[in-house]
């Protein structure tokens, strides 16, 4: 177990920042204390009591993650960070915060906990800022309907939501609202 959480947070954030500035590329988070803790580790370097959190369809996990990261639980319509398990928001994505034209940064960040991320496949093709040409990746463990919802939520740039995908091996990939998503 890594006792120096401060430095661990810095290293974790750099990986997330790399991911967010290179959409569709897969990056590996630094060693987590245990495999089950990667989501807490990822949220931990970003969240405090100024930020709100919702977990779709799992109130117990919501309370646990909020306690662990020192953040406040909120309904998914108001949450800054939304954790999605089992690859589906059950159609609720359309109600997540997308920000306002004056303050688009108040749009939500979605953390999808998926099975596996790989840049070998080309199920999803991402273009836009941060991407040289196009980036393709395969994401297993996400409901295909989510892509339609995500595209819909991000159809009015600068309004939108920013998605982070985290797999079971601690790999992440990001698709911010500035990206165009193609589904094969």
């Amino acid at each position, binding site marked *: 177990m890594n*006792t*120096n*959480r*401060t*430095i*661990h*947070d*810095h*290293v974790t*954030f*750099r990986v*997330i*920042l790399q991911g*967010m*500035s*290179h959409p569709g590329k897969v990056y590996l988070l630094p060693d987590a*204390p*245990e*495999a*089950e*803790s990667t*989501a*807490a580790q990822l949220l*931990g*370097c*970003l*969240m*405090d*009591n*100024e*930020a709100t959190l919702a977990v779709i369809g799992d109130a*117990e*996990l919501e309370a*646990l*993650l909020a*306690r*662990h*990261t*020192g953040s406040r639980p909120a309904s998914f319509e108001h949450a*800054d960070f939304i954790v999605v398990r089992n690859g589906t928001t059950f159609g609720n994505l359309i109600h997540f915060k997308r920000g*306002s*034209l*004056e303050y*688009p*940064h108040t*749009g939500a*960040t979605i953390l999808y906990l998926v099975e596996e991320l790989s840049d070998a496949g080309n199920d999803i093709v991402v273009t836009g*800022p*941060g*991407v*040289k040409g196009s980036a393709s990746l395969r994401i297993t463990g996400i409901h295909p309907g989510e892509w339609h919802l995500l595209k819909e939520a991000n159809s009015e*740039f*600068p309004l939108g939501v*920013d998605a982070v995908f985290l797999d079971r091996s601690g790999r992440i990939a990001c698709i*911010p*609202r*500035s990206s165009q998503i193609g589904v094969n």
Partner: protein
Amino acid sequence: MQMHEWLKNNDPLAHAEAHIAGYPFGFMDEGAKKEIRRSILKAVAIPGYQVPYGSREMPIARGWGTGGLQITLSLIKPDDILKVIDQGCDGSVNAVNIKKFVMAVTQVAITTDTRAATLIQTRHRIPEERMTDQQILVLQVPYPEALREVEPSEMETRRMHAEADYSRMWLYLYEDIVHYGEITISYRYPVTVNGRYITDPSPIPRWDVPKLHMADTLFLFGAGREKRIYAIPPHTSVEPLEFEDHQFRIEDFSGKACARCGATDTFLDEVIDNVGGGRSYFCSDTGYCDKRSRTWNR
């Protein structure tokens, strides 16, 4: 349910490690760093949009690079190699002080070589050597609002950005051309990022503006006094404002060369000899000039 169990069995990890020079790694409290990190991620996701954040008190005065410093301190990691420049110079007072401070609270290594650095904080220049996708450039910004020149009200500039209503900026440039025959903005030249937001590239010379376009590197902008963070991600279109018949152009140094390293392809500072009145030119990017002069003077 494994994650549930892990979370139940483990207390939140404490920030209980040994301090460096009496401060936590990165100097700032964790809450400050986390807010800045959230702002940086949103800034990257909305290229060119200025994200408001709660700028903290730093041990240097506001207006002396606190915005850049706060970004640097929230994302630096122990294996980073840091370079800090002020108007291209590694050795100026502002750069040296920031460098010493960051070194004291993080114990990272320092370099003057652009290629060797992983993280560069800069005031008003972008290094001459092309940076890679593994590097991050943090720019200190005095005035983050490109529209402030034409509109003093923050509420109004916010509305203008929201509606992409940039007609007054274009009119300002047009009037400049009518008065002087050309656009007279020498530094802080406004750019359109990702075809959406008009953005202030910080007071870099025109020479550096094309380096922002489709770069390999992430550019983060921090305005500490004005409490704004914004970003230009890599591979993002950055177009200086121009008209079809009045195209953007960079400074012209034709016929001039650096008196120290002989460079004819760098941004040059003009130095006037106080005694003789003669003019000579030197590279503004001292790290690059050092590197070149080592081979040129041999």
